[in-house]
């Protein structure tokens, strides 16, 4: 910027706001000069000069007239009610059945095909269009439905016969209900004497690997993925001559419950398949937490995690094969979690 003294600055600014060709750019010029002026203050400008300059600037600026809220008159008549031809007993279409990746609601798009292809690559709610400054009705309904599904996944129960049907013993943590589970995380990590006994009698001897299936924050994730993943882990372990042991199902389960199971069984490694906190993308996402030498008080950094196991993420079966290999590695290296990564990086 060319202005070296305040006088020069003032002259330049005057020129800028009066010369026709500059008139369009005068805001930009003003900003540049203002920045320069601020820099100059440290050098030689005094307070008076600065306030004179600010007064000049304000004079040069066109301050837009204030508009009162009450004066706003919409010119758009807004959407007219449409006759839906619905009769009593009819059902409206289920908004949750629409594939969000294919749903593109922008009106008069420039290149809808291109946008659709972009949408296929992400679960994000893109291209939803708008009604004025708000969501369209469909977007709003779907958002609420997905939110409801996420809440349902937390509050619903894994079916009572789930463990039995899949040949597992069921135990539960100190929690007695979903409400207790959600409000008392500490109780979701420990077992009472009765359940400890149950674990003890279900699992013979001291297993090397203990697989635990826990409902966690999403029962839907467990119902959808746990058994496919478990079967793949079992076969993968058998292939590596590791005894997959006797898996156990824990209701009202938090990740820390695996540590308590480590205390009871004395196992070398716990692999817990647990429902993840549901989100708006999917309510069926499962994680595997693998802990070497699990015991109460073990550091969270000692856990190796494989997350995002669901139909749109890593398929449960393929994840299971990966987890089996990971268990093998962890048993060989005798370390899990951050330690495993540090060792691999070294």
């Amino acid at each position, binding site marked *: 910027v060319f202005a070296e003294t305040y006088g020069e600055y003032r002259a330049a600014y005057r020129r800028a706001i009066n010369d026709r060709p500059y008139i369009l750019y005068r805001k930009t010029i003003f900003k540049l000069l203002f920045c320069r002026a601020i820099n100059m203050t440290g050098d030689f400008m005094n307070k008076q000069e600065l306030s004179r300059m600010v007064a000049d600037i304000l004079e040069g600026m066109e301050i837009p007239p204030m508009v009162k809220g009450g004066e706003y008159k919409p010119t758009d008549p807004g959407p007219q009610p449409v006759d839906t031809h619905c009769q009593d007993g009819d059902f409206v279409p289920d908004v949750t059945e629409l594939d969000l990746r294919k749903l593109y609601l922008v009106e008069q798009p420039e290149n809808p095909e*291109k946008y659709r292809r972009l949408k296929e690559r992400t679960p994000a709610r893109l291209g939803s269009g708008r009604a004025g400054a708000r969501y369209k009705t469909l977007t709003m309904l779907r958002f609420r439905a997905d939110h409801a599904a996420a809440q349902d996944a937390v509050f619903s129960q894994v079916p009572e016969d789930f463990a039995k049907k899949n040949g597992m013993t069921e135990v539960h943590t100190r929690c007695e209900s979903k409400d207790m589970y959600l409000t008392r995380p500490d109780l979701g990590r420990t077992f009472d004497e009765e359940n400890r006994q149950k674990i003890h009698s279900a699992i013979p001897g001291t297993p090397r690997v203990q697989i635990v299936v826990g409902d966690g924050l999403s029962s839907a994730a467990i119902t959808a993925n746990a058994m496919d993943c478990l079967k793949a882990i079992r076969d993968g372990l058998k292939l590596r001559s590791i005894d997959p042991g006797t898996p156990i199902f824990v209701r009202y389960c938090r990740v820390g419950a695996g540590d308590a199971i480590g205390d009871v069984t004395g196992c070398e490694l716990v692999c817990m398949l647990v429902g993840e906190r549901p989100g708006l993308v999917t309510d069926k996402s499962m994680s595997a937490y693998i802990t070497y030498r699990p015991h109460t008080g073990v550091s969270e950094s000692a856990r190796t995690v494989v997350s995002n196991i669901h139909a749109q993420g890593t398929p*449960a079966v393929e994840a299971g094969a*990966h987890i089996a290999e990971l268990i093998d590695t962890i048993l060989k290296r005798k370390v899990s979690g951050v330690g495993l990564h540090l060792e691999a990086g070294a």
Partner: protein
Amino acid sequence: VGDTLKSVGLDIGTTSTQMILSELTVENRASIFAVPELDITNRKILYKSPVHFTPLLDGSHMDGDAIRELVAREYRAAGISREDVDTGAVIITGETSRKENARTVLQALSDFAGDFVVATAGPDLESRLSAKGAGAVEYSRETGKTVLHMDIGGGTSNLSLIREGNILRTGCLNVGGRLLKLDNSGCITYVSPVLQGLCPLTTGERVTREQVAELARLLAQTLEMAAGLGQPTALLQQLLTEEAEAAWQPPREGCVISFSGGVADCIARDFDWLEFGDMGPLLGRAIRESSLCRGEYRLGAETIRATVIGAGCHSAQLSGSTVFCRNVALPMKNLPVVSLSREEQLDPEALRRKLTGQEGPSVIALPGFREGGYDAVTALAQSILSGVGEHPLYLCLEQDMAKALGQVLALHTAGDRSILCIDRVRLPPESFLDVGKPIGPALPVVVKTLVLER
């Protein structure tokens, strides 16, 4: 920071020979809390050789010894030795004697190309590589436009039709700048046999600029037909390369035409017609004046180097990051592909039928599935085991399920049986697969369309 692969690209055409050395960066794009997902995230060119004339013994046969010398010199100039090279491709182009030349080059380069994953490609892969090397694929992906890319070299023109960054189809025409060669007095020194019947000119004859320009216009017309800008005649049929996978279908939609190859430089700029001792300058001019350049057209970011850059940077891809590999010596080269369709993949009879007649090992390509859970994977493994017989268990799936499938196969076979199970790679029928040494949990692979000897 990811791992890197050193990749060499060699383009040996009937006219020019070039080499590049590039570095491919492989990174895990998934977080450490998820199953790894490796991808090639960067391609950096470390060295570009000058454009050499290909040493020839006669009009069309390559001089193996001289090529070996040339490549040895370029390896030294690039500061690499054979052991440094992880992957790469040698592309042998030319309108005639492709197979004989490829054999010569393979023998000549056996010292260097020993660990190369790929040795030769077909016209289909060549077209793909030149379109990627010229930046036409990237241009199409970024703009969303349909692009017809033409890599016009000395002997052939490789065509690719690209929509939204996907190569829809490829083709190859015997149209190039060196179908006719001249000395500096305007005497013809070589007429390519593919011009037989198209051009009355013969070797030794002195020709005028106008005579050559007329032939150039004829060739440019053929390119127009291939671009769907004129009624196709017998001319187009005559100049289509026989080795191309299928007959070229001119695009029906409007598209941006993009050019690379040596002749592309002559489209942008006028040279003296005898500057290069061939018809390149006049062919370039004829293309510029044809309807090809009347609509929207662009020159590739790379012109004469497009194919070699494609070969060096874009020939290798990565498999999925959860794969299964037992008792398999890598790299493996030139595995023919036996394809099973969605319906056939659970039919052991279909597999048995397709494998009979396969002499050496081949790779079984199947789509796989996402639904059905573990039981479906077990069923697929059983079906494959009952159909495969004594054939090696080399499988390539499209869906992400290779590790699980490989694991089931391993459980049900003897512990020393070779199993290779990779995924997230689509293999077109009639293609061949090269598999390199693992990089992290993934395997670098090259899919090609033509191989010579097994």
